[in-house]
Structures are given as C-alpha cells and as structure tokens.
C-alpha cells in the first residue's frame, strides 16, 4: 500500500462512522465511495461497522416495543395531566392552623409524640392542678403569686399595698396564730403563715397603723391576730397608734381592748388617759375607763409577765405614781363633765373601785 493510499485509508476510516449513518456531506460521501471501490480493507471495515451498527440496532430497536400496550405512555399522560391541574388550579386558601408545624411534626413521629404527650400530661397533673387550685383560691382576676412568709417586703411594696383593698381571714384554729392574707395590689398576693413571722407581722402592723388605707373590718381582724402578741414592741406601738388615731371607733376600742394585758405599761396608760380626755366616742372612753381601772387594780397574771409588771411597785408605792394621780384626776373630770351619762357613771364607779387605794 502506497503512502498516499495509507493517508486516504486513515481519513476514510475516521469518516466511516458517519458514512454508515449517513452523516457525511455529499463531497465526503463521493470521496469515501470512490476510495472504498478500490480499497478492500476499508470496505471490510465499513462492513464491520455496519454489522456492529446492525447488532446494536437490533438490540436497541427492541425498545420500540417497550410499551406495546401503551400502558406506560397512558400513565405518563395521566400523571402529567394531574400535575398540570395542580399548576393551573388557583392556590387554595390556606386555613389558619394553630400549631400546624407541631401537628405535622407529631404526625411524622408518632412514638416521640406519644412520649411528649405523656410528659405533658404528667407535668400538668403534678404542677398544673396545684397551680390552678391556688389561682382559684385567690379569687382575684389577675395572676396570684403565693408568697412564702420568708419574703421581705420593702416600704415601697407596703405602700403599694395601701392602694389596694385587703381581706384577712384567720384560720379556723385561732390559737395556732396562723393567718392568711389576701392582698389585692397590682399583682395579687396570698400571704399565709404564723403571726410570729416577721414579714407577716409587719404587714399586719402596717395595716393597723395605716387605717385610712384598708377597710375597718380588715383592721379589726388584724387587731384580733395581733392581740396575743402585745409583748412585741412593734405590735404594741401599732396598737397604741390605732387606739389613738384610727378613724373608726370600733377599731380604736378593739385596739385598746387588745392592749388590756399590758395596761400597766406607762405608754399604754397615757394613751388610755388621752382617750379619756379626747376621744369623741363614749364607747371608747368607757373602754378606756375599764382598762385604766384594770391597770390600777394591777396584779393580773398577764401583767406580771411583762417587764413593766416585774418592776411594778406595791399598791402604796403605786399611789405615788404620778400617772395614777392623773388617771384619778381625769376620771373625776369625766364623772363631773362627760357629756355621756354612761361615761359619767362608769367613771364614778371606777373612782369607787380605786378609791380605797387613794384613801390609803
């Protein structure tokens, strides 16, 4: 084979693939056919190319029968039509579904969802019900905070309490000293605990000392709770203040009555004398007379327990007490000039009761 012939074979071989599938230009086709006519080797290669091509086509043509029943094509058309329906349809109004994400999450994870629901149920059962019960007990509109007795109240907090009404209900067992206060402030509070608790006692004394900020009934209940704690200086101060200054005579009288066990105390006695002289309510003045007589009679077991009682002088020495003279003087004034007849009578009786001491 000559060199030009070899070059021609090489060129034609590269084109045989396209010649076999009729992808050559007319010029190329003419050149190839001319060469093939005189080159047995290339003609053989073309035959091989066509043979291979035929083999491939024989195998591949089988796919023409792939869907003789048209089932796949029919299914494809239906699926496409459905997809087109979805595309053409106006978007559905999306209904608002609260916690939709949670619902879909739970739908996909049934086991986890069950576990979460059980935990939520446990939580509600152990925590939610007591909380709900406490909230209902408070009887208030807002959220109720149960404050433990150890909480410390600032003056500002107490002042804020003053603008709200307060109810007080002692427990059924009044001797236990346990009380429960429902305080309606910006955030409703329920205070419960012993009167001996410093904070709770502070609230009680605050209520008693700030009579214009709570209802009289509440103050009376507070006095009732505090009456057994008159040994405490703060409690006594609050009671004395209420006895002198509370606008409600019943509260003033109750405050005095609460002080009966410590009437030998000089400050208490002065408060009583002051009430005799200045209190406008005859009932209060009578109560003051009673308590003064009691103080002058002395010797009560309760009084003996107070520090003042320990230092209390003997009856003869008691006559030397300057306040005693003032008490007698005041009683005499009342007997003569009190506008209320009962007060005058009670004063006279009192003077008679303490008279023997005075004679001695």
């Amino acid at each position: 084979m000559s060199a030009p012939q070899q070059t021609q074979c090489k060129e034609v071989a590269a084109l045989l693939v396209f010649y076999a599938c009729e992808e050559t230009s007319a010029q190329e086709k003419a050149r190839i056919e001319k060469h093939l006519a005189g080159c047995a080797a290339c003609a053989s290669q073309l035959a091989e190319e066509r043979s291979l091509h035929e083999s491939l086509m024989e195998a591949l043509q089988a796919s023409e029968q792939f869907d003789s029943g048209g089932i796949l094509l029919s299914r494809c058309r239906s699926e496409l039509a459905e997809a087109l329906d979805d595309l053409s349809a106006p978007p559905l109004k999306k209904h608002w579904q609260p916690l939709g994400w949670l619902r879909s999450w739970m739908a996909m994870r049934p086991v986890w969802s069950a576990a979460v629901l059980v935990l939520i149920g446990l939580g509600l059962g152990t925590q939610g019900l007591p909380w709900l019960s406490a909230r209902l007990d408070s009887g208030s509109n807002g959220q109720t905070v149960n404050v433990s007795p150890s909480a410390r109240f600032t003056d500002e907090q107490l002042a804020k309490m003053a603008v709200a009404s307060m109810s007080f209900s002692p427990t059924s067992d009044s001797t236990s000293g346990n009380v429960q206060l429902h305080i309606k402030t910006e955030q409703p509070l329920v205070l419960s605990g012993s009167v001996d608790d410093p904070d709770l006692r502070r609230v009680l004394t605050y209520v008693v000392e700030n009579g214009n900020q709570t209802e009289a009934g509440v103050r009376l209940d507070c006095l009732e709770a505090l009456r057994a704690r008159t040994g405490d200086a703060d409690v006594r101060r609050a009671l004395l203040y209420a006895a002198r200054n509370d606008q409600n005579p019943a509260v003033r009288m109750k405050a005095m009555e609460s002080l009966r066990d410590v009437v030998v105390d000089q400050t208490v006695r002065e408060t009583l004398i002051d009430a005799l002289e200045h209190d406008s309510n005859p009932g209060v003045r009578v109560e003051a007379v009673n308590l003064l007589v009691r103080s002058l009679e002395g010797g009560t077991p309760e009084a003996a327990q107070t520090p003042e009682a320990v230092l209390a002088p003997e009856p003869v020495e008691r006559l030397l007490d300057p306040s005693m003279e003032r008490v007698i003087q005041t009683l005499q004034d009342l007997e003569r000039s009190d506008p209320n007849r009962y007060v005058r009578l009670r004063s006279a009786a009192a003077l008679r009761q303490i008279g023997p001491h005075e004679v001695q």
Partner: protein
Amino acid sequence: MAAADSLPNVNEQSLVAEAQAGSRVAFEELVHRYDRDVLRLALNLMKRPEDARDVYQEAFLKVFKNLHRFRFECSFYTWLYRIVTNVCLDHLRRRQARPEDQSPEPNPGHHEEGITDFFERQREHRPTLDPERQLFGKEIQARIASAMERLSPRERVVFEMKHYQGLKLRAIGDALGTTEETVKNSLFRATRKLRSQLGGLR
C-alpha cells in the same frame, strides 16, 4: 422523527401560539404529538421505566412553565428535545454520582405491568428465532447494556439520538445546546468505545 416531519409547521405554530395564550387543549395536543418519542428516548437512555416516567413528567412540566419563552427561532420539536435531553442528562449525571444507583436493569421483582424486559418481548415477537439465537441475543443484550453504561451521559444521549431517534447531528447539537462538531466528536468516541466493548459480537 416521523411525528415532527409529518406535521405541517403551520399547524404546530398555531398550536404553540394557542398554548402560549393559555389553551390547555392546545398544549395537550402538542404533548400527544411528541410524547411517544420523548418517552422512548427517556426509556432508551434511562433503561428504567420509573426513571423514564420521571423524565417525561419533568420535561413536559418544564415545557409548560417555559412555553412563553419559546420565540419560534427553531422548531418546537427541537426546542422540546433540548429540554428533554437536558433533563435526561441531569438524571444520568445524578445517577452516575450515586454508584449504588447505576444498575441499568430494572429489578425483575419491580417490573411494571406491560413494561417488562423489552428484550424478552422482542423475543416473543420473533417466534422464528431459534433457541440458540435467543440465547446468543440475550448475551448480546447484556453486553450492549454494559457497554452503554460505560459511555458518558452526553455520548450516550448523542448515540441514542442519532441511532435510535434518527436525528441529524445538527438537530442533536441544537437539542443539546452545542455545536454539530462537538456532537460529531461525541458520536465518534461513543462508537469507538462500543466497538471495543462489543468487537467480538460478530
């Protein structure tokens, strides 16, 4: 392409225009004219009916959504095939990226009704073939399938479009968005590879 060649362009153009104007009927008429060829191409390329269905659906939905972009600069058929071949190429490339997903033969247990092994069907349609020939044919089919898998996605698409769909290299280039020369190179390489794999068949 018998379907494309047999249809007068004017009808096709009016159908496309109607479909562009929003006519669902016109669009479905266009689909029905060409979808046999589309499904056949997809089946030959993907070898699995479920993949072919995916290609069919994805390709025609792309056509539907992008029909307004068609400017009649080429035939609708060429434009359609460009989309179909690109979808096929995407699927083939994704399949290549997943080695576990490369088996071209459908699982016999998952054959869809009516879409069983078309080689088997071919044998049934040729009752004159003797058993020896059938056995030989099965071996050829297996080797061809294996050889086709060794082609790159583009080589495979070019080979199929040329030899099975009967498209001209220029049309294939249009469909693939490349030059006729590139398509020619792909076809040459594909043929050479197949020949080396299947050289002993004859």
